[in-house]
Protein backbone atom coordinates (compact mmCIF):
# COMPACT_ATOMS: atom_id res chain seq x y z
CA UNK A 1 0.00 0.00 0.00
CA UNK A 2 1.10 3.53 -0.72
CA UNK A 3 1.62 6.49 1.58
CA UNK A 4 -0.22 9.73 2.20
CA UNK A 5 1.57 13.02 1.68
CA UNK A 6 1.51 13.53 5.47
CA UNK A 7 3.24 10.18 6.06
CA UNK A 8 5.86 10.99 3.42
CA UNK A 9 6.60 14.40 4.89
CA UNK A 10 6.94 12.99 8.40
CA UNK A 11 9.14 10.18 7.12
CA UNK A 12 11.35 12.81 5.49
CA UNK A 13 11.82 14.72 8.74
CA UNK A 14 11.95 11.77 11.14
CA UNK A 15 14.79 9.61 12.30
CA UNK A 16 13.02 6.67 10.67
CA UNK A 17 12.88 6.47 6.90
CA UNK A 18 9.49 4.83 6.67
CA UNK A 19 6.54 5.80 8.82
CA UNK A 20 2.86 4.98 8.92
CA UNK A 21 -0.07 6.56 10.76
CA UNK A 22 0.21 5.61 14.42
CA UNK A 23 4.03 5.51 14.54
CA UNK A 24 5.61 7.75 17.18
CA UNK A 25 8.60 9.62 15.81
CA UNK A 26 11.04 12.35 16.65
CA UNK A 27 10.50 14.87 13.87
CA UNK A 28 12.69 17.82 12.96
CA UNK A 29 10.51 20.73 11.83
CA UNK A 30 11.82 22.56 8.78
CA UNK A 31 10.39 25.76 10.24
CA UNK A 32 9.26 26.79 13.72
CA UNK A 33 6.94 29.79 13.55
CA UNK A 34 5.22 31.90 16.19
CA UNK A 35 3.63 35.30 16.66
CA UNK A 36 4.33 37.12 19.84
CA UNK A 37 1.57 36.74 22.38
CA UNK A 38 1.61 36.91 26.17
CA UNK A 39 1.79 33.45 27.72
CA UNK A 40 3.38 31.91 24.61
CA UNK A 41 6.50 33.53 23.17
CA UNK A 42 7.45 35.44 26.32
CA UNK A 43 7.10 32.25 28.38
CA UNK A 44 9.00 30.16 25.81
CA UNK A 45 11.92 32.65 25.76
CA UNK A 46 12.02 32.64 29.58
CA UNK A 47 11.76 28.86 29.90
CA UNK A 48 14.52 28.37 27.33
CA UNK A 49 16.93 30.35 29.46
CA UNK A 50 15.77 29.62 32.99
CA UNK A 51 14.70 25.99 32.74
CA UNK A 52 17.06 24.76 30.03
CA UNK A 53 20.00 27.18 30.12
CA UNK A 54 19.71 27.81 26.37
CA UNK A 55 20.31 31.42 25.41
CA UNK A 56 20.28 30.95 21.64
CA UNK A 57 18.57 28.58 19.23
CA UNK A 58 20.97 26.39 17.27
CA UNK A 59 19.73 26.97 13.72
CA UNK A 60 18.16 30.43 13.56
CA UNK A 61 17.21 30.05 9.89
CA UNK A 62 14.63 27.44 10.98
CA UNK A 63 12.76 30.00 13.10
CA UNK A 64 10.49 32.91 12.23
CA UNK A 65 8.63 35.32 14.48
CA UNK A 66 5.72 37.56 13.54
CA UNK A 67 4.31 40.63 15.23
CA UNK A 68 0.75 40.70 13.95
CA UNK A 69 -1.41 40.72 17.10
CA UNK A 70 -1.63 43.94 19.12
CA UNK A 71 -0.56 45.94 16.05
CA UNK A 72 -0.48 48.85 16.53
CA UNK A 73 0.12 48.61 20.28
CA UNK A 74 -2.39 50.42 22.47
CA UNK A 75 -0.67 49.93 25.85
CA UNK A 76 2.92 50.18 27.00
CA UNK A 77 2.79 46.51 28.04
CA UNK A 78 2.00 45.48 24.47
CA UNK A 79 4.86 47.53 23.07
CA UNK A 80 7.16 46.03 25.73
CA UNK A 81 6.13 42.53 24.64
CA UNK A 82 6.92 43.45 21.02
CA UNK A 83 10.31 44.84 22.08
CA UNK A 84 11.08 41.63 23.96
CA UNK A 85 10.37 39.77 20.72
CA UNK A 86 12.53 42.11 18.62
CA UNK A 87 15.40 41.84 21.13
CA UNK A 88 15.14 38.06 21.29
CA UNK A 89 15.12 37.88 17.49
CA UNK A 90 18.18 40.15 17.21
CA UNK A 91 20.11 38.13 19.81
CA UNK A 92 19.19 34.83 18.18
CA UNK A 93 19.55 36.06 14.58
CA UNK A 94 15.95 34.97 14.06
CA UNK A 95 13.92 37.19 11.70
CA UNK A 96 11.04 39.14 13.24
CA UNK A 97 8.45 40.21 10.67
CA UNK A 98 6.44 43.15 11.82
CA UNK A 99 3.61 45.12 10.25
CA UNK A 100 3.63 42.98 7.12
CA UNK A 101 0.29 41.36 7.78
CA UNK A 102 -1.13 38.28 9.45
CA UNK A 103 1.72 35.84 9.91
CA UNK A 104 -0.05 32.76 8.57
CA UNK A 105 -0.44 34.58 5.23
CA UNK A 106 2.91 36.36 5.30
CA UNK A 107 4.64 33.03 6.03
CA UNK A 108 3.44 31.84 2.62
CA UNK A 109 4.47 35.09 0.93
CA UNK A 110 7.95 34.80 2.45
CA UNK A 111 8.53 31.21 1.37
CA UNK A 112 8.06 29.32 4.63
CA UNK A 113 5.46 27.21 2.84
CA UNK A 114 7.42 24.75 0.77
CA UNK A 115 5.83 21.61 -0.68
CA UNK A 116 7.07 18.68 1.39
CA UNK A 117 8.04 20.79 4.40
CA UNK A 118 7.01 20.24 8.06
CA UNK A 119 6.17 23.38 10.03
CA UNK A 120 5.06 23.90 13.62
CA UNK A 121 3.45 26.90 15.32
CA UNK A 122 1.50 27.19 18.56
CA UNK A 123 -1.56 28.43 16.61
CA UNK A 124 -3.62 25.94 14.63
CA UNK A 125 -4.52 28.33 11.78
CA UNK A 126 -0.99 27.75 10.44
CA UNK A 127 -2.73 24.76 8.81
CA UNK A 128 -3.29 27.04 5.80
CA UNK A 129 0.28 26.41 4.63
CA UNK A 130 -1.21 23.06 3.60
CA UNK A 131 -2.37 24.94 0.48
CA UNK A 132 1.23 24.60 -0.72
CA UNK A 133 1.72 20.95 0.23
CA UNK A 134 3.31 21.85 3.57
CA UNK A 135 2.34 19.89 6.68
CA UNK A 136 1.82 22.72 9.18
CA UNK A 137 0.57 21.96 12.66
CA UNK A 138 -0.42 24.04 15.68
CA UNK A 139 0.92 22.36 18.81
CA UNK A 140 -0.02 24.97 21.46
CA UNK A 141 2.51 25.12 24.32
CA UNK A 142 4.33 22.06 23.00
CA UNK A 143 6.06 24.59 20.78
CA UNK A 144 8.59 25.00 23.59
CA UNK A 145 9.91 21.58 22.58
CA UNK A 146 10.84 22.94 19.14
CA UNK A 147 12.78 25.80 20.77
CA UNK A 148 14.85 23.63 23.10
CA UNK A 149 15.21 20.45 21.03
CA UNK A 150 16.08 19.81 17.42
CA UNK A 151 13.32 17.21 17.21
CA UNK A 152 9.83 17.01 18.63
CA UNK A 153 7.97 13.90 19.69
CA UNK A 154 5.10 13.39 17.30
CA UNK A 155 2.60 10.66 16.52
CA UNK A 156 2.03 10.26 12.79
CA UNK A 157 -1.64 11.09 12.28
CA UNK A 158 -4.16 9.28 10.15
CA UNK A 159 -5.53 11.09 7.10
CA UNK A 160 -9.13 11.66 6.04
CA UNK A 161 -9.48 12.44 2.35
CA UNK A 162 -12.24 14.69 1.06
CA UNK A 163 -12.79 15.15 -2.65
CA UNK A 164 -14.82 18.20 -3.57
CA UNK A 165 -16.54 18.09 -6.94
CA UNK A 166 -18.53 20.51 -9.06
CA UNK A 167 -18.40 24.18 -10.01
CA UNK A 168 -19.35 26.81 -7.43
CA UNK A 169 -22.28 29.11 -8.19
CA UNK A 170 -21.54 32.86 -8.46
CA UNK A 171 -21.54 34.44 -4.97
CA UNK A 172 -20.55 31.13 -3.36
CA UNK A 173 -16.96 31.06 -2.17
CA UNK A 174 -14.32 28.81 -0.66
CA UNK A 175 -15.50 30.03 2.73
CA UNK A 176 -18.93 28.54 2.08
CA UNK A 177 -17.27 25.32 0.96
CA UNK A 178 -15.36 24.97 4.22
CA UNK A 179 -18.37 25.44 6.46
CA UNK A 180 -20.34 23.07 4.25
CA UNK A 181 -17.65 20.44 4.89
CA UNK A 182 -18.26 20.90 8.64
CA UNK A 183 -21.99 20.57 8.03
CA UNK A 184 -21.50 17.30 6.13
CA UNK A 185 -18.85 15.55 8.22
CA UNK A 186 -19.56 17.24 11.55
CA UNK A 187 -17.30 19.09 13.99
CA UNK A 188 -15.44 15.89 14.83
CA UNK A 189 -15.65 14.26 11.41
CA UNK A 190 -11.90 14.51 11.06
CA UNK A 191 -10.92 14.43 14.73
CA UNK A 192 -7.18 14.03 15.23
CA UNK A 193 -6.58 13.44 11.53
CA UNK A 194 -4.96 15.32 8.70
CA UNK A 195 -7.65 16.58 6.32
CA UNK A 196 -6.40 15.97 2.78
CA UNK A 197 -8.39 17.87 0.16
CA UNK A 198 -8.69 17.21 -3.54
CA UNK A 199 -11.18 16.89 -6.37
CA UNK A 200 -11.97 19.11 -9.32
CA UNK A 201 -13.39 21.93 -7.18
CA UNK A 202 -10.02 22.24 -5.46
CA UNK A 203 -8.15 21.82 -8.76
CA UNK A 204 -10.05 24.78 -10.20
CA UNK A 205 -9.87 26.91 -7.05
CA UNK A 206 -7.46 29.80 -6.56
CA UNK A 207 -4.68 29.50 -3.99
CA UNK A 208 -6.47 32.18 -1.97
CA UNK A 209 -9.59 30.03 -1.82
CA UNK A 210 -7.56 27.02 -0.78
CA UNK A 211 -5.90 29.07 1.99
CA UNK A 212 -9.33 30.01 3.24
CA UNK A 213 -10.34 26.35 3.54
CA UNK A 214 -7.12 24.89 4.93
CA UNK A 215 -6.92 27.73 7.49
CA UNK A 216 -10.04 26.51 9.24
CA UNK A 217 -9.26 22.78 9.37
CA UNK A 218 -9.46 22.73 13.19
CA UNK A 219 -13.23 23.14 13.09
CA UNK A 220 -13.57 19.67 11.55
CA UNK A 221 -11.50 18.32 14.46
CA UNK A 222 -8.49 17.95 12.14
CA UNK A 223 -4.97 18.79 13.31
CA UNK A 224 -4.24 20.31 9.90
CA UNK A 225 -5.24 20.24 6.24
CA UNK A 226 -3.14 19.65 3.16
CA UNK A 227 -3.50 19.69 -0.62
CA UNK A 228 -1.16 17.85 -2.96
CA UNK A 229 0.78 20.59 -4.72
CA UNK A 230 -0.24 21.31 -8.32
CA UNK A 231 1.21 23.63 -10.94
CA UNK A 232 -0.51 26.64 -9.38
CA UNK A 233 1.00 26.00 -5.93
CA UNK A 234 4.42 25.11 -7.32
CA UNK A 235 4.64 28.23 -9.45
CA UNK A 236 3.65 30.43 -6.45
CA UNK A 237 6.45 29.06 -4.29
CA UNK A 238 9.03 28.84 -7.09
CA UNK A 239 10.56 32.27 -6.49
CA UNK A 240 9.76 32.27 -2.76
CA UNK A 241 10.74 28.92 -1.22
CA UNK A 242 13.46 29.17 1.41
CA UNK A 243 14.53 25.56 1.25
CA UNK A 244 15.09 23.30 -1.69
CA UNK A 245 13.24 20.04 -1.19
CA UNK A 246 11.47 17.71 -3.57
CA UNK A 247 7.70 18.18 -3.51
CA UNK A 248 5.87 15.16 -2.09
CA UNK A 249 2.51 13.73 -3.13
CA UNK A 250 0.10 11.10 -1.81
CA UNK A 251 0.29 7.78 -3.63
CA UNK A 252 -2.80 6.74 -5.56
CA UNK A 253 -3.11 3.68 -3.28
CA UNK A 254 -2.45 5.56 -0.02
CA UNK A 255 -4.29 4.39 3.08
CA UNK A 256 -6.94 6.78 4.39
CA UNK A 257 -8.93 6.53 7.62
CA UNK A 258 -11.96 7.48 5.58
CA UNK A 259 -12.86 9.10 2.26
CA UNK A 260 -15.72 11.44 1.41
CA UNK A 261 -16.87 12.98 -1.82
CA UNK A 262 -18.84 16.18 -1.50
CA UNK A 263 -20.59 17.75 -4.50
CA UNK A 264 -20.65 21.54 -4.09
CA UNK A 265 -22.30 22.47 -7.38
CA UNK A 266 -25.67 23.24 -5.75
CA UNK A 267 -24.16 24.91 -2.65
CA UNK A 268 -25.74 28.20 -1.59
CA UNK A 269 -24.09 30.91 0.54
CA UNK A 270 -23.94 29.68 4.13
CA UNK A 271 -24.00 31.22 7.58
CA UNK A 272 -22.44 29.92 10.78
CA UNK A 273 -24.88 30.88 13.48
CA UNK A 274 -23.60 32.01 16.89
CA UNK A 275 -22.36 30.86 19.28
CA UNK A 276 -21.04 27.62 17.74
CA UNK A 277 -18.44 27.33 14.96
CA UNK A 278 -20.20 24.12 13.94
CA UNK A 279 -23.74 25.45 13.42
CA UNK A 280 -23.68 25.82 9.63
CA UNK A 281 -26.95 26.67 7.84
CA UNK A 282 -28.03 28.12 4.53
CA UNK A 283 -27.84 31.90 4.64
CA UNK A 284 -31.49 32.00 3.56
CA UNK A 285 -32.50 30.82 7.06
CA UNK A 286 -31.34 34.06 8.69
CA UNK A 287 -32.07 36.59 5.94
CA UNK A 288 -33.60 39.71 7.47
CA UNK A 289 -31.66 39.52 10.77
CA UNK A 290 -30.58 43.06 11.65
CA UNK A 291 -26.82 43.63 11.90
CA UNK A 292 -24.84 46.73 12.75
CA UNK A 293 -21.22 45.65 12.20
CA UNK A 294 -19.38 43.97 9.33
CA UNK A 295 -15.87 42.55 9.48
CA UNK A 296 -14.11 41.56 6.27
CA UNK A 297 -10.66 40.23 7.03
CA UNK A 298 -8.73 37.59 9.08
CA UNK A 299 -6.26 34.85 8.22
CA UNK A 300 -9.15 32.86 6.72
CA UNK A 301 -10.62 35.57 4.50
CA UNK A 302 -9.58 39.09 3.49
CA UNK A 303 -7.49 38.26 0.43
CA UNK A 304 -7.66 39.96 -2.97
CA UNK A 305 -10.58 37.95 -4.31
CA UNK A 306 -12.57 38.46 -1.09
CA UNK A 307 -11.99 42.22 -1.26
CA UNK A 308 -12.85 42.28 -4.96
CA UNK A 309 -16.04 40.29 -4.42
CA UNK A 310 -17.13 42.71 -1.68
CA UNK A 311 -16.32 45.67 -3.97
CA UNK A 312 -18.41 44.07 -6.73
CA UNK A 313 -21.39 43.72 -4.37
CA UNK A 314 -20.97 47.32 -3.20
CA UNK A 315 -20.59 48.70 -6.73
CA UNK A 316 -23.10 51.51 -7.21
CA UNK A 317 -24.22 51.33 -3.56
CA UNK A 318 -23.38 52.96 -0.25
CA UNK A 319 -23.30 51.16 3.05
CA UNK A 320 -26.25 51.88 5.30
CA UNK A 321 -25.96 54.98 7.45
CA UNK A 322 -24.55 54.00 10.86
CA UNK A 323 -23.33 50.58 9.75
CA UNK A 324 -19.69 49.89 10.66
CA UNK A 325 -17.93 48.03 7.85
CA UNK A 326 -14.34 47.22 8.82
CA UNK A 327 -12.17 45.90 5.99
CA UNK A 328 -8.73 44.61 6.95
CA UNK A 329 -6.72 43.01 4.13
CA UNK A 330 -4.89 39.88 5.30
CA UNK A 331 -1.45 41.27 4.46
CA UNK A 332 0.28 44.41 3.23
CA UNK A 333 1.14 42.60 -0.02
CA UNK A 334 -2.59 41.93 -0.51
CA UNK A 335 -3.39 45.55 0.38
CA UNK A 336 -0.93 46.71 -2.27
CA UNK A 337 -2.39 44.45 -4.98
CA UNK A 338 -5.93 45.51 -4.05
CA UNK A 339 -4.89 49.17 -4.17
CA UNK A 340 -3.27 48.79 -7.59
CA UNK A 341 -6.42 47.11 -8.89
CA UNK A 342 -8.58 49.96 -7.62
CA UNK A 343 -10.42 47.73 -5.17
CA UNK A 344 -9.51 49.79 -2.11
CA UNK A 345 -10.85 52.95 -3.74
CA UNK A 346 -14.11 51.20 -4.61
CA UNK A 347 -14.52 49.99 -1.01
CA UNK A 348 -13.79 53.44 0.41
CA UNK A 349 -16.25 55.06 -1.98
CA UNK A 350 -18.96 52.72 -0.75
CA UNK A 351 -18.26 53.76 2.84
CA UNK A 352 -15.97 51.00 4.14
CA UNK A 353 -13.42 51.71 6.86
CA UNK A 354 -10.08 50.22 5.80
CA UNK A 355 -7.28 49.40 8.22
CA UNK A 356 -3.79 48.08 7.68
CA UNK A 357 -3.34 44.38 8.21
CA UNK A 358 -3.58 43.13 11.80
CA UNK A 359 -5.13 40.21 13.66
CA UNK A 360 -6.80 42.54 16.11
CA UNK A 361 -10.28 42.82 14.61
CA UNK A 362 -10.74 39.05 14.70
CA UNK A 363 -10.37 38.53 18.45
CA UNK A 364 -12.13 41.58 19.81
CA UNK A 365 -9.19 43.85 20.45
CA UNK A 366 -10.26 46.40 17.80
CA UNK A 367 -13.68 47.11 16.36
CA UNK A 368 -15.19 45.92 19.64
CA UNK A 369 -18.96 45.36 19.91
CA UNK A 370 -21.12 46.40 22.82
CA UNK A 371 -23.89 44.22 24.26
CA UNK A 372 -26.77 43.77 21.85
CA UNK A 373 -24.78 44.39 18.66
CA UNK A 374 -24.62 41.84 15.89
CA UNK A 375 -21.92 41.36 13.28
CA UNK A 376 -21.56 39.61 9.98
CA UNK A 377 -17.97 38.46 9.84
CA UNK A 378 -15.40 36.58 7.82
CA UNK A 379 -13.33 36.15 11.00
CA UNK A 380 -12.33 32.70 12.15
CA UNK A 381 -14.72 32.24 15.01
CA UNK A 382 -18.20 33.16 16.25
CA UNK A 383 -18.10 32.11 19.91
CA UNK A 384 -19.61 34.33 22.56
CA UNK A 385 -17.50 37.39 23.31
CA UNK A 386 -15.00 36.82 20.49
CA UNK A 387 -15.49 40.36 19.14
CA UNK A 388 -16.39 42.23 22.30
CA UNK A 389 -19.27 41.86 24.71
CA UNK A 390 -20.36 38.29 25.55
CA UNK A 391 -23.83 39.63 24.76
CA UNK A 392 -22.97 40.53 21.17
CA UNK A 393 -23.35 38.04 18.32
CA UNK A 394 -21.27 37.02 15.31
CA UNK A 395 -22.73 35.50 12.15
CA UNK A 396 -19.96 34.07 9.97
CA UNK A 397 -20.62 34.53 6.26
CA UNK A 398 -18.64 34.99 3.05
CA UNK A 399 -17.19 38.31 1.85
CA UNK A 400 -20.09 38.99 -0.51
CA UNK A 401 -22.65 38.52 2.27
CA UNK A 402 -20.72 40.91 4.56
CA UNK A 403 -20.90 43.56 1.83
CA UNK A 404 -24.59 42.94 1.10
CA UNK A 405 -25.46 43.19 4.81
CA UNK A 406 -23.54 46.47 4.98
CA UNK A 407 -25.81 47.93 2.29
CA UNK A 408 -29.06 46.80 3.87
CA UNK A 409 -28.24 46.69 7.60
CA UNK A 410 -29.60 43.17 7.72
CA UNK A 411 -28.44 39.77 6.58
CA UNK A 412 -29.27 39.39 2.93
CA UNK A 413 -28.51 37.12 -0.02
CA UNK A 414 -25.63 38.80 -1.87
CA UNK A 415 -26.26 37.10 -5.20
CA UNK A 416 -28.75 39.60 -6.64
CA UNK A 417 -26.10 42.31 -6.12
CA UNK A 418 -23.69 40.40 -8.34
CA UNK A 419 -26.01 40.15 -11.31
CA UNK A 420 -25.79 43.81 -12.34
Amino acid at each position, binding site marked *: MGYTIAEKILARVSEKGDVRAGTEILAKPDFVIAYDFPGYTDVIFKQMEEDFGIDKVAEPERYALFIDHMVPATTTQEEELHQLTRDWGAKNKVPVYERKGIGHQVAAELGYATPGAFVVHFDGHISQLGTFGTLAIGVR*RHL*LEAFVKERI*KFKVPETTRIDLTGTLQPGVTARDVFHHIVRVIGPRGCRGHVLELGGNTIDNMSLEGRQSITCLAMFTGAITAIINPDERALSYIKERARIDIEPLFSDSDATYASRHEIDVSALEPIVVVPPSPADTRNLSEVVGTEVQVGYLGSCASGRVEDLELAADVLEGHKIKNGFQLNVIPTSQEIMEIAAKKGIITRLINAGAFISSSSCDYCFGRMGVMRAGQRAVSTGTLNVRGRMGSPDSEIYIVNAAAVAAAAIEGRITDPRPYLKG
Partner: protein
Amino acid sequence: MALENLRGRVAWIFEDEDFDVDQIVGVKNIKIKDPAELGKLALRAEDPEFAAKVKPGDLLVGNQNFGYGHPHYPPMIGMRHLGIAGVLAESFSPGYWRGEIAMGFPQAACPGITKAVSRWDEIEIDWAANEVQNHTTNIILPIEPLSDGDRLMLEAGGLVGYLHARDKQETTT
Protein backbone atom coordinates in the same frame (compact mmCIF):
# COMPACT_ATOMS: atom_id res chain seq x y z
CA MET B 1 8.12 5.76 36.82
CA ALA B 2 4.58 4.54 36.38
CA LEU B 3 1.58 6.83 36.52
CA GLU B 4 -0.33 6.60 39.77
CA ASN B 5 -3.98 5.61 39.66
CA LEU B 6 -6.38 8.52 40.03
CA ARG B 7 -9.22 7.87 42.45
CA GLY B 8 -11.88 10.47 43.14
CA ARG B 9 -15.47 11.50 42.75
CA VAL B 10 -17.13 12.64 39.55
CA ALA B 11 -17.40 16.34 40.32
CA TRP B 12 -19.16 17.25 37.09
CA ILE B 13 -20.43 15.66 33.89
CA PHE B 14 -20.34 17.89 30.81
CA GLU B 15 -23.27 16.59 28.82
CA ASP B 16 -22.78 18.76 25.73
CA GLU B 17 -20.89 17.26 22.83
CA ASP B 18 -18.18 19.50 21.29
CA PHE B 19 -17.98 21.38 24.60
CA ASP B 20 -15.97 24.61 24.50
CA VAL B 21 -14.04 24.69 27.80
CA ASP B 22 -13.95 28.49 27.83
CA GLN B 23 -17.56 28.31 29.02
CA ILE B 24 -16.37 26.84 32.35
CA VAL B 25 -15.29 30.27 33.55
CA GLY B 26 -17.18 32.31 30.93
CA VAL B 27 -15.63 34.04 27.94
CA LYS B 28 -15.58 37.40 29.71
CA ASN B 29 -13.25 35.94 32.37
CA ILE B 30 -10.84 34.23 29.99
CA LYS B 31 -8.08 36.81 30.48
CA ILE B 32 -7.95 36.29 34.27
CA LYS B 33 -4.64 34.75 35.34
CA ASP B 34 -5.09 34.20 39.09
CA PRO B 35 -5.79 30.47 39.68
CA ALA B 36 -7.79 31.13 42.85
CA GLU B 37 -10.07 33.56 41.10
CA LEU B 38 -10.49 31.17 38.17
CA GLY B 39 -11.31 28.38 40.62
CA LYS B 40 -14.05 30.46 42.22
CA LEU B 41 -15.56 31.17 38.78
CA ALA B 42 -15.48 27.55 37.60
CA LEU B 43 -18.99 26.35 36.72
CA ARG B 44 -20.44 29.01 38.98
CA ALA B 45 -23.22 29.70 36.50
CA GLU B 46 -24.24 26.02 36.56
CA ASP B 47 -23.70 25.31 40.26
CA PRO B 48 -22.93 28.28 42.54
CA GLU B 49 -21.55 25.86 45.17
CA PHE B 50 -19.27 24.00 42.75
CA ALA B 51 -15.98 25.34 44.14
CA ALA B 52 -17.03 24.52 47.70
CA LYS B 53 -18.16 21.00 46.86
CA VAL B 54 -15.00 19.87 45.03
CA LYS B 55 -12.44 17.84 46.98
CA PRO B 56 -8.83 17.31 45.90
CA GLY B 57 -8.65 14.27 43.65
CA ASP B 58 -12.09 14.74 42.11
CA LEU B 59 -12.43 14.16 38.37
CA LEU B 60 -14.39 15.65 35.50
CA VAL B 61 -16.27 13.73 32.83
CA GLY B 62 -16.85 15.06 29.31
CA ASN B 63 -18.74 13.98 26.22
CA GLN B 64 -17.58 13.61 22.59
CA ASN B 65 -14.91 15.97 21.26
CA PHE B 66 -14.42 17.64 24.62
CA GLY B 67 -12.47 20.90 24.22
CA TYR B 68 -13.71 21.82 20.73
CA GLY B 69 -13.22 25.38 19.45
CA HIS B 70 -10.38 27.69 20.42
CA PRO B 71 -9.47 26.29 23.84
CA HIS B 72 -7.64 28.48 26.33
CA TYR B 73 -5.73 27.44 29.44
CA PRO B 74 -7.45 29.42 32.26
CA PRO B 75 -10.52 27.15 32.77
CA MET B 76 -8.45 24.10 33.68
CA ILE B 77 -5.98 26.22 35.66
CA GLY B 78 -9.00 27.11 37.80
CA MET B 79 -10.12 23.48 37.99
CA ARG B 80 -6.66 22.31 39.07
CA HIS B 81 -6.61 25.00 41.73
CA LEU B 82 -9.77 23.44 43.17
CA GLY B 83 -8.06 20.05 43.23
CA ILE B 84 -9.51 18.50 40.08
CA ALA B 85 -7.08 15.70 39.23
CA GLY B 86 -8.03 14.84 35.67
CA VAL B 87 -10.63 14.51 32.93
CA LEU B 88 -12.28 11.48 31.36
CA ALA B 89 -14.25 12.02 28.18
CA GLU B 90 -15.88 10.03 25.40
CA SER B 91 -13.28 11.68 23.13
CA PHE B 92 -11.18 14.85 23.08
CA SER B 93 -10.53 17.65 20.63
CA PRO B 94 -6.85 17.28 19.65
CA GLY B 95 -5.75 20.87 20.33
CA TYR B 96 -7.29 20.91 23.79
CA TRP B 97 -5.86 17.47 24.59
CA ARG B 98 -2.36 18.43 23.55
CA GLY B 99 -2.43 21.69 25.49
CA GLU B 100 -3.54 20.13 28.77
CA ILE B 101 -1.23 17.11 28.54
CA ALA B 102 1.62 19.62 28.19
CA MET B 103 0.46 21.10 31.50
CA GLY B 104 0.85 17.64 33.06
CA PHE B 105 -2.93 17.34 33.52
CA PRO B 106 -4.02 13.68 33.24
CA GLN B 107 -6.79 12.91 30.76
CA ALA B 108 -8.11 9.72 29.23
CA ALA B 109 -10.50 8.97 26.40
CA CYS B 110 -13.10 6.47 27.57
CA PRO B 111 -15.91 5.62 25.15
CA GLY B 112 -19.11 5.04 27.13
CA ILE B 113 -18.06 7.00 30.22
CA THR B 114 -20.96 9.49 30.18
CA LYS B 115 -23.45 6.64 30.46
CA ALA B 116 -21.45 4.72 33.05
CA VAL B 117 -21.20 7.36 35.77
CA SER B 118 -23.42 9.70 37.77
CA ARG B 119 -22.31 12.83 39.55
CA TRP B 120 -20.41 12.09 42.78
CA ASP B 121 -19.77 8.41 41.90
CA GLU B 122 -16.36 7.28 43.13
CA ILE B 123 -14.23 6.28 40.15
CA GLU B 124 -10.64 5.21 39.58
CA ILE B 125 -8.42 5.44 36.51
CA ASP B 126 -5.97 2.55 36.34
CA TRP B 127 -3.26 3.50 33.81
CA ALA B 128 -1.54 0.11 33.92
CA ALA B 129 -4.72 -1.82 33.20
CA ASN B 130 -6.01 0.90 30.84
CA GLU B 131 -9.40 0.95 32.49
CA VAL B 132 -11.74 3.00 34.62
CA GLN B 133 -13.56 1.44 37.51
CA ASN B 134 -16.73 2.94 38.93
CA HIS B 135 -16.49 1.90 42.59
CA THR B 136 -20.06 3.07 43.23
CA THR B 137 -21.61 0.79 40.62
CA ASN B 138 -18.76 -1.66 40.00
CA ILE B 139 -18.82 -0.96 36.26
CA ILE B 140 -15.43 -1.24 34.52
CA LEU B 141 -14.73 0.40 31.17
CA PRO B 142 -11.54 0.35 29.06
CA ILE B 143 -9.74 3.62 28.36
CA GLU B 144 -7.77 4.31 25.19
CA PRO B 145 -4.07 3.76 25.95
CA LEU B 146 -1.93 6.90 26.09
CA SER B 147 0.67 7.34 23.37
CA ASP B 148 4.25 6.93 24.59
CA GLY B 149 4.81 10.65 24.26
CA ASP B 150 1.73 11.58 26.28
CA ARG B 151 2.51 8.99 28.95
CA LEU B 152 6.08 10.25 29.33
CA MET B 153 4.81 13.81 29.55
CA LEU B 154 2.31 12.98 32.31
CA GLU B 155 4.89 10.95 34.20
CA ALA B 156 7.24 13.93 34.11
CA GLY B 157 4.49 16.28 35.30
CA GLY B 158 4.28 18.18 32.02
CA LEU B 159 6.28 19.47 29.12
CA VAL B 160 9.23 21.00 30.99
CA GLY B 161 9.77 17.87 33.08
CA TYR B 162 9.46 15.72 29.99
CA LEU B 163 12.09 17.73 28.11
CA HIS B 164 14.47 17.47 31.07
CA ALA B 165 13.88 13.70 31.12
CA ARG B 166 14.76 13.62 27.42
CA ASP B 167 17.93 15.64 28.15
CA LYS B 168 19.06 12.97 30.62
CA GLN B 169 18.19 10.14 28.27
CA GLU B 170 20.00 11.77 25.35
CA THR B 171 23.19 12.36 27.35
CA THR B 172 23.30 8.80 28.68
CA THR B 173 22.59 7.02 25.38
